[in-house]
Each structure stands twice: as structure tokens, then as C-alpha cells.
């Protein structure tokens, strides 16, 4: 049971309804668990059209559902697990405004990751893209992250689709990892990370992070540092600096990560805390963005929070 992951390029609300309403109804007919996540005013239009029949559909506003790509993947996975043994039929319209370039890249990557995370789930997902208002790049990437495409009434495979691993390495290729010379530095030499937690917590507080977000950063930095102590090669250290509104915390060691992180590392939600990858996946949940760089000069994990 593979996933049917389909991008739907639409021009206005009428075209949106022409395709999404039959899609949701087909899910009901197949006895799938049906959820509709859409942006306004599409969401209201959809509810109005479907209201007379009062079908068992769960509605969500995209503005609430799409806040952090790793969280959104987790939430869709929860829906899939809770619906089992029924499969899921999801209308899934992402949010593309309000992100900077770096965040947009993560949301594009997210669409590609759907193909891996829900492989074997039997889910059907229709992802609407508003071609009138979205930047051309976002629409172009949708053709590369969705194996299926609905465009101008035609439905079929997307010729430009790229598998998620290849796509993910493409996303990572252009990343820059420069670090200011005056970043605060803390060497990590013992196995006791108490001092590291105070160091990070203090800087997070000074940066103005709310208590919970500061604590999340501390937990994330602690996890990455514990990993470096366990698997890395000294010297190990932590740098903290501000980048505009962001606070960045980077942990590096001198080791060469072999076979090295894959473009999927830490993105696939584990089934339990006992599974490999639980730590890095949780780190991705705890911060706004985690970036990995494993090179000849060492392994570096960068955590970004705003």
C-alpha cells in the first residue's frame, strides 16, 4: 500500500471546490478516515458546500496545522496511526506565506518527506497549490515533490518527480555554515553536561526566549552534545551566537561521521523512544531548525531558534 501523494494546481476557489469535494467524497465512499486541512477562505467554502450532508470529516485550518514542518509530519502520522486499520484520505494544503527563504526550503523538503514517512500507509493525499498567488518556485517544486499531479483537469504522474533522498541532498547542498569569529565558545570535555545546560540556558534567557522555548533549546543542545561525547572525536565544543532575531547554537566535534547522515536523518518519526533516531528526531521537534554537516573537518550540528 503505497501513498498516493498528489499536487493539485488550482487557480480560484471554484476550481478548488471542483476537485477537492469529489476527492473527499471518494474517501468517504472507500470508508477512509477523511480529514481536510485547508487555508481560508477555502476551508469555509469547503465546509459550506459539504455542510448539508454533514459527512464525517475532520476540518483543520492550515494556519494552525502548518507551523513547523517536523511537527506537522508528526501530527499527520498521529492521524494515520489513530485511524488504523482504516486508511486516511487527506486534503492537505500547506502554508507558504510568512516564511523566509530558509524556512520555505524546509517546507518544500517536508512535501518530499511525505513520500517516505507515509510509504506503505495506503493514504491518499491531495495537496492544493494556488498558482495565482504562490511564487513560481513553490509551484515548480511541487511538481518535484509529488509523484502525482492534477493540473487543469488532467490527473497523472508528475514527470519531474524526484525521490526524497536525492531531493533532500539537493536541499542540503546549498546550505552555508559560516560562523562569526566572536561566537561564545564552551569546550565540552567531561561527560557531565550540567555546565553546558547552564551556559545555553543563560544565553537563551538573554536572547529573550520564553522559558519553555529556552528549555527546549537546552534539551536539544544537551542531546547533541551527549551524542558527540558518545560517538564523536575530541575536541568537542559548543558555539552560541545571534543571527538577527535567531539564536544559534552549534555543537561540533572532530570526528568523521561514517557512513554519515542521510538526507532523511532525524526526519522520520520513530515509532518509540526505543528506536534508533529517536534523539535526533526529537531535537528537530525541539528547535525551529536543525542542520547537520558532516565533513572532513568534523561533524557539526546547528540548532536555530527564534
Amino acid at each position, binding site marked *: 500500500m503505497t501513498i498516493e501523494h498528489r499536487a493539485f494546481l488550482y487557480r480560484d476557489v471554484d476550481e478548488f471546490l471542483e476537485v477537492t469535494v469529489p476527492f473527499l467524497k471518494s474517501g468517504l465512499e472507500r470508508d477512509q478516515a477523511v480529514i481536510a486541512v485547508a487555508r481560508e477562505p477555502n476551508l469555509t467554502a469547503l465546509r459550506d458546500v459539504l455542510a448539508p450532508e454533514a459527512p464525517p470529516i475532520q476540518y483543520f485550518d492550515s494556519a494552525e496545522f502548518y507551523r513547523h514542518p517536523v511537527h506537522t509530519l508528526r501530527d499527520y502520522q498521529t492521524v494515520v496511526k489513530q485511524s488504523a486499520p482504516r486508511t486516511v484520505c487527506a486534503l492537505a494544503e500547506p502554508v507558504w506565506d510568512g516564511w523566509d527563504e530558509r524556512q520555505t526550503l524546509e517546507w518544500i523538503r517536508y512535501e518530499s518527506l511525505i513520500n517516505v514517512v507515509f510509504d506503505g500507509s495506503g493514504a491518499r493525499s491531495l495537496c492544493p497549490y494556488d498558482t495565482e498567488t504562490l511564487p513560481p518556485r513553490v509551484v515548480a517544486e511541487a511538481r518535484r515533490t509529488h509523484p502525482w499531479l492534477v493540473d487543469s483537469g488532467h490527473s497523472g504522474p508528475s514527470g519531474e518527480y524526484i525521490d526524497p533522498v536525492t531531493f533532500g541532498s539537493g536541499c542540503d547542498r546549498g546550505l552555508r555554515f559560516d560562523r562569526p569569529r566572536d561566537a561564545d565558545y564552551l569546550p565540552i570535555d567531561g561527560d557531565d553536561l550540567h555546565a553546558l*545546560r547552564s551556559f545555553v540556558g543563560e544565553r537563551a534567557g538573554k536572547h529573550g526566549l520564553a522559558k*519553555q522555548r529556552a528549555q527546549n533549546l537546552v534539551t536539544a543542545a*544537551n542531546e547533541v552534545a*551527549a551524542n558527540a561525547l558518545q560517538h564523536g572525536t575530541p575536541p568537542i565544543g559548543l558555539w552560541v551566537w545571534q543571527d538577527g532575531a535567531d539564536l544559534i547554537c552549534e555543537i561540533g566535534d572532530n570526528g568523521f561521521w561514517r557512513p554519515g547522515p542521510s538526507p532523511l536523518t532525524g526526519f522520520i518519526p520513530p515509532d518509540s523512544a*526505543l528506536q534508533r533516531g*529517536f534523539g535526533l528526531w526529537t531535537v528537530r521537534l525541539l528547535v525551529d531548525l536543525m542542520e547537520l554537516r558532516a565533513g572532513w573537518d568534523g561533524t557539526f550540528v546547528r540548532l536555530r531558534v527564534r
Partner: protein
Amino acid sequence: MRWASKFPAAAYAEPITDLDGQAMEKPWFAKRPVSGVRPGDHGWLAYSGSEERDRVIGPFVQEGLQTNEKVVYVTDAPPERLPGLGTRHHINVDAYRRAGQLRVISRQDACLDRYGGFEPARMVDTLGREVDKAFDQGFRAVRITTDYSWLLNEPRRSDLGQVLGCEHRVGDAVSPSTMAMAICQIDRHACPRDELIALRDTHEVLVEVNPEFDDGILKIVRTFEPDGLRVEGELDAARHAVFAEKLTQVSKDRGRVHLDFSRLAFIDLGGLHLLARHATVLPASEPLVLDHLAPDVESVIEMVGWHRLPGLTRGTERVLSDSEGIG
């Protein structure tokens, strides 16, 4: 009665209830492990069973005998069966009694009138006499303890007001003392909850077992009823091994184990992994219960989702300080 007092006034907070038992202000307690009890402490132990009692009173008695302090135990039980005493503990009870360092005084001699009724004034006099003698004998301190559950749960139970009055007077005598310290024991099932609270509130110090581990960052304390551990401070990779060891110990031959996380400020992700791994060897019907989750810890667990921590379950919510010391 001298009580070897240097201070004219109580060294601790003002009494927290007046004589009618009305709450005057928020109770204020110091919570101390038994080895931290010191002269001036009028301590309280509401134990859940003999294991907890023995793990508190045992060290209290033994440490006194080992450090040239006098131990006064008011009880009708035979000395060799008292917590911390007897051959099992390699303590020569008779020798300590002959030397006057251990005084085991029967209830009749300590605090009953000729008709067998409880007489608070006698108790205070008896203890005062023992403390005075200890001063003359050259002991540097006196440890006093008694279990007064019998006053409250026997058919001829005493009036609660009488017991409270006795506690106040003992407290007034011990608190300013530079020599005397006391632990009043009570079986927490001996009387109703409101009476327990009233009794507790006549003490300034709540005594508990010594921690299983404490390095200033992480503290692990055995809890009873429910059986488990209270984990305080920060649990991280450097402390996983000791925590796993204590967790395995407390889980052995016991039913459901509870972890009190009310004072756990930090748990690393490896710690969550450790809890889930521990739970895999427990029977499915007996999950590991996490009680009183502190917000920072709860937020991480909710972020990853409880279903990713199989075998762990949420227990009771954070408690009010009302139940402090009485379970």
C-alpha cells in the same frame, strides 16, 4: 527542666496552628533526610509501613549510638526489636543500656497515669529529665523518638487535643534546645487525614529516608506507598547508570512502581529512552507511573507523544503542599 537551651525563643517559625487547631498561616516545614536531623529539630515521620519506618528510625538510632549521643526511645516493644537495634545490626543493646547511652522507657513509665491513661505532662517531664541527665552524663546530644500511633488507634484512644497539646509542649522544649532532637513517629493509617494534618502542623521538620543518591545535581529518594523513587534535579547521561540501578532495585519484586517527578527540572532524551527500556521488562499490566510531572518535563514528553514511551503512564497531577509529609 533545662533542655540545655541557649536560646530564649524558638529557633524556628512561629507555631502554625493555635490551640483550637485553627490554621494561623501557611504551614512552613523543613524537609530533612534522617541524617540531617540536628539538635533543635522537632521532627515528624508519618510512615506507610515498617520498611519506611525502619529506614528512618534505624539510622536515627544507630547514628546516635555511634557518635556519643544519647538515644531515648519510649516504647513497649522489646529493645532488640526496635528499628536499627538488635543482633542483625551488630549493636550490643545491653552494653549501650548499661552505659546509659540507650534508654528504652516503657509507656507506663514515660507518660501514663496510674490508671493507664495518657498524661501529656508526664511525657514532657520524662523527656526533660532524660535530657538533663544526658547533659550531666556528658553526651553531646540526645535523640528522642516514640511511636504514638497507639494513642490514636486503640479502642481507648486519647483525645486529639491532648495529643496536640503534648506535641506543642515537646516542640516548645525541643526547638530552642542545643542538645535535644526528636522524631515523633506515627503510622499514617492510624487516624483520619485531617487529624494527621493537625498533628503534622505541630512540627517544623518533616523527616524522610536518606537519599539513595545525591551529587548536588541529581537526588534520588526512595518513596513508599506508592513504592518508587522521587527524582529531583537533573537527570542526564552522566547519571543514567546510577538511576537505572536504583530503578531496577526498587522494581524488584514489587508491583507498580511510581516515579515522583515533581522536582525534576531536567531529563535528557536518553533518560526517556532509559525509562521506556526499563518498562519493556515490566509486565504489561504494571506500567511505570510518572507522578506530578514538572511542566518542563511534561512538555518534552507531550511533544514526542506518550505513545512513543510504551510502558510509561501518567499518574497523579502535581499535588498541593497540603499532603506534604503524609503521602
